[in-house]
């Protein structure tokens, strides 16, 4: 019997922030759908990649260590992928840090801290896009996905929100400018995702983690936070969308917290 091909067979995906809660789920889902997945993170993702490969019975998930706030490091990492695979077909800009160590509120935040956070959260995405676009243009196909955040988030450090909001402009601009190259863009505007990062944030604020998590679930109109697995499914739904179905899309995914609460 002929084997049915998976929807992302032959595609090369790069996911930044691949070692975090959302990143792991995206990598797992995309590899499950047949894509080669480069798991880009400043931390070592070898163990997670191995786990994904053993779950899927394949060798599609590949660790990739890179500090995306440095364009030289991104260039080096991209050269490796280009040599092996020809280029990146699907780019998922998911990496983020909430803020620098030390003061995060304004005006106490240091310029260096602001810049470093901003570079991880937005410049890193720009560096990867600049490297990925020529291949996407050449083959007349590409998908660029962003894990964004709502503009009205309160209590979020300014460089994080600046970076995440920049994704929305990139989504619109790239989607329009490269429409004829079938390069499609998607921003999922996320608020409150049930990840280890959110637990770390609560702990850093000396809050009761279980109580804090319960409150966050309750804040959503749906009664629960979105899970990394749900995000991964949405991303794959977008990545597999035929060219004619969508050009650029920014989708608020916040459980109604931003505008309906």
């Amino acid at each position, binding site marked *: 019997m002929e084997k049915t091909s998976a929807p992302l067979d032959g595609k090369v995906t790069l996911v930044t922030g691949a070692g975090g809660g959302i990143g792991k789920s995206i990598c797992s889902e995309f590899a499950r*759908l047949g894509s080669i997945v480069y798991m880009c993170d400043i931390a070592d993702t070898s163990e997670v990649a191995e786990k994904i490969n053993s779950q899927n019975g394949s060798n599609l998930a590949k660790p990739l260590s890179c500090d995306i706030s440095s364009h030289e490091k991104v260039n080096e990492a991209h050269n490796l992928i280009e040599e092996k695979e020809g280029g990146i077909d699907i780019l998922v800009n998911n990496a983020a840090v909430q803020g620098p160590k030390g003061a995060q509120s304004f005006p106490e935040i240091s310029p260096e801290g602001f810049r470093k956070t901003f570079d991880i959260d937005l410049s890193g995405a720009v560096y990867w896009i600049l490297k990925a676009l020529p291949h996407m243009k050449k083959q007349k196909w590409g998908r660029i996905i962003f894990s964004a955040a709502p503009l009205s988030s309160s209590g979020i450090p300014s460089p994080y929100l600046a970076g995440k909001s920049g994704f929305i402009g990139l989504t619109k601009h790239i989607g329009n400018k490269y429409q004829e190259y079938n390069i499609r863009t998607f921003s999922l505007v996320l608020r409150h995702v049930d990840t280890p990062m959110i637990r770390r944030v609560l702990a850093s604020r000396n809050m009761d983690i279980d109580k804090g998590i319960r409150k966050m679930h309750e804040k959503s*109109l*749906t009664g629960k936070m979105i899970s990394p697995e749900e995000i991964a499914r949405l991303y794959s739904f977008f990545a597999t*969308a035929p060219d004619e179905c969508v050009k650029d899309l920014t989708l608020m995914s916040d459980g109604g917290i931003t505008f*309906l609460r």
Partner: protein
Amino acid sequence: MHDGHVFHNNKRCIILGTKGLPGKWIVPHLYSAGASICLLNTEETEKDSLDEKATESHKIIPGEKESISEAVRTFTVQNNPIDYLICSTNFDQMRKELDVADPESETWNKLVDKWIMTYFHLLQETVPPMIEKGSGKIVFFNSTRGYTGEGEGEGHLSPEGSIFEAACSSAITGMMTSIARDIIPKGISINGIALGNSLEEKKNKVLWALDLWLSGMASYSCGQIYRIY
């Protein structure tokens, strides 16, 4: 779990407005995916191929509660409960009627009955059984003219007379947003699709957006409107 496709097998849906676009696309799309369909239309027209795909087809009187209740009850008695409610309208027909140089208050009143009140009554009929079941998906169609006050996008001029469409369309957004707060905690999703001017070439975009809302994958996107220019 999906593999690049969304299926609607055995889903029971009520679709309003199938005598023009986008309803004409939606019915075969859901039918071929295995859905059981009840069509509601406000226009008196000949039966067409879509009626054959439907389990039921009803003519309702725009904005009239009794007529809408009766049609919904007939379907729910046989197929209780409803999984999807899709509220659309015949955009081409509506625009023909509205895009005139000197719109009158009578035209406005007709539009309110046809669009706002028909959506409202349909919600009142279908939401209680959805609440009882603890699930259901609602998709409203409206128009991008309600956002931009313009035609195809920013900087595009509206056709004359589309003032009514812009007002009603924004009103639908407001109604949906408010109702979203009440019904989402009860397990029902409600989202919208706003359409621009030239519908003909947008079939794939409309159906993809519909699948996005109906699939449940975007259930954390509460009361959101997907704009298709």
